[in-house]
């Protein structure tokens, strides 16, 4: 399967799962909103330029926004993590040029520990920005803090489950072949 086809299918699946499964769950508490859709942005291949990465993320976020009737909210958060993704990967990649050998970020290509940090940092950034935009319109500081912590916790759990359920085999690529 080519990258384009695979990512197009993922695009649709992530949106549908996020809206029709996770948003339909009865809320446990006002702070807890299960988010997993942004994993799509984290899974996009290394080879994409930063510009196309941001453009795809913008469209991705906007698509979800049209379902939830909040145009711009998720799009803004997605664009931000797409922009910052490159910096985080550069810091965390174990050795220079290792991203050339694999297609996309995953526990196999980056190693479990760096990958966990990568997900943690971008999850926190995504939720802080998202909840901040909500907070601008209403709520208190306690609401902001509580929601970021609770939502990040549940999101990280969902990401872990997703990674274990859909384990992505990454082939090691070399120039010699």
């Amino acid at each position, binding site marked *: 399967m080519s990258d384009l086809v695979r990512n197009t299918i993922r695009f649709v699946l992530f949106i549908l799962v996020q809206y029709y499964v996770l948003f339909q769950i009865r809320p446990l508490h006002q702070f807890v909103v299960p988010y997993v859709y942004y994993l799509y942005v984290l899974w996009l291949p290394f080879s994409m330029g930063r510009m196309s990465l941001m453009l795809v993320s913008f469209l991705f976020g*906007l698509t979800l926004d049209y379902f939830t009737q909040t145009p711009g909210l998720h799009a803004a958060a997605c664009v931000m993590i797409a922009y910052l993704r490159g910096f985080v990967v550069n810091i965390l990649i174990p050795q220079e040029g290792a991203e050339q050998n694999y297609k996309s970020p995953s526990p196999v290509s980056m190693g479990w520990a760096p990958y966990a940090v990568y997900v943690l940092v971008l999850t926190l950034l995504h939720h802080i920005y998202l909840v901040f935009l909500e907070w601008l319109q209403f709520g208190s500081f306690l609401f902001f803090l509580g929601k970021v912590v609770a939502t990040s916790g549940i999101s990280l759990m969902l990401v872990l489950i997703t990674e274990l359920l859909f384990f992505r085999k990454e082939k090691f690529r070399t120039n010699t072949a």
Partner: protein
Amino acid sequence: MRNIFLFIRRYFNFVFFVVLQVAALYILFHYNKFHEAVFSNVANELTGNIGGKYNNVTYYFHLKKTNDDLAKENEELRNKLLSNFERPDTTQKMMQDSIPYDTLGHHRKYLYREAKVVNNTVSLPNNTLTIARGENQGVQKNMGVIGPTGVVGVVINTSANYAVVMSLLHRQSKVYASLKKTGETGYVFWDGNSPLYITLKNVPKSAPLAKGDSVVTSQYASYRFPQGILIGTVMDIVDDKTSSFYTVRLKPATNFFNVQYVTVVENLVKDEQAKLEEETNKINQ
């Protein structure tokens, strides 16, 4: 000049990032103000379509509950039928009424249209429903929406075949309400905390109030809703000593978790009312 170009080229990624951010934020804040957005009509149509397909599946699981609600509503309506009441006939002679029209000037004020819910959220800070009935089927912005058991919300956006309804669980929702027993008025809004409660405010403390009392739409809400539609029942009363008004938590009459069918209410004389009020406002200024 060359330096400027070099600068832009060097930081092109960052510039592009800022442009996309500004675009997203512009859409976000523009939308929340005017309830309109770029391509919102086309997007409504599309998400409504997907929602309809999804609803075909989930609808099946709620059939029992939906059926119960509709049966109960039928029972209630049947109880209101005029034929249920018998009046002893006291006239002595049969007379044919010679006037062909109603001299009291009765005219229809509200028109009801049934609609199916195809999309629904309860867990977001601003919750909406999408219904499978749009402009082509007579739904316009600002119409009231009620369900089998009570008030649901207000239409905020329409496309050709779908409409988006702001439910009571929306930050900008505000419905004028009154106590069913004594008629004191106030307004109902949502504080955004729990989808299980809505809040009633501005009811004076002189009104007797107890748990379980019904709160219905008031005559001031008649622009959108007929008077006396159930909004919710009193769950508990917050004792605020600093105010001479009650703050009351209500349990919404509509169960937003499984609403399947709603009725859109059109006020046929609202233009007349709006025009009159607007003219009066002009004079008063």
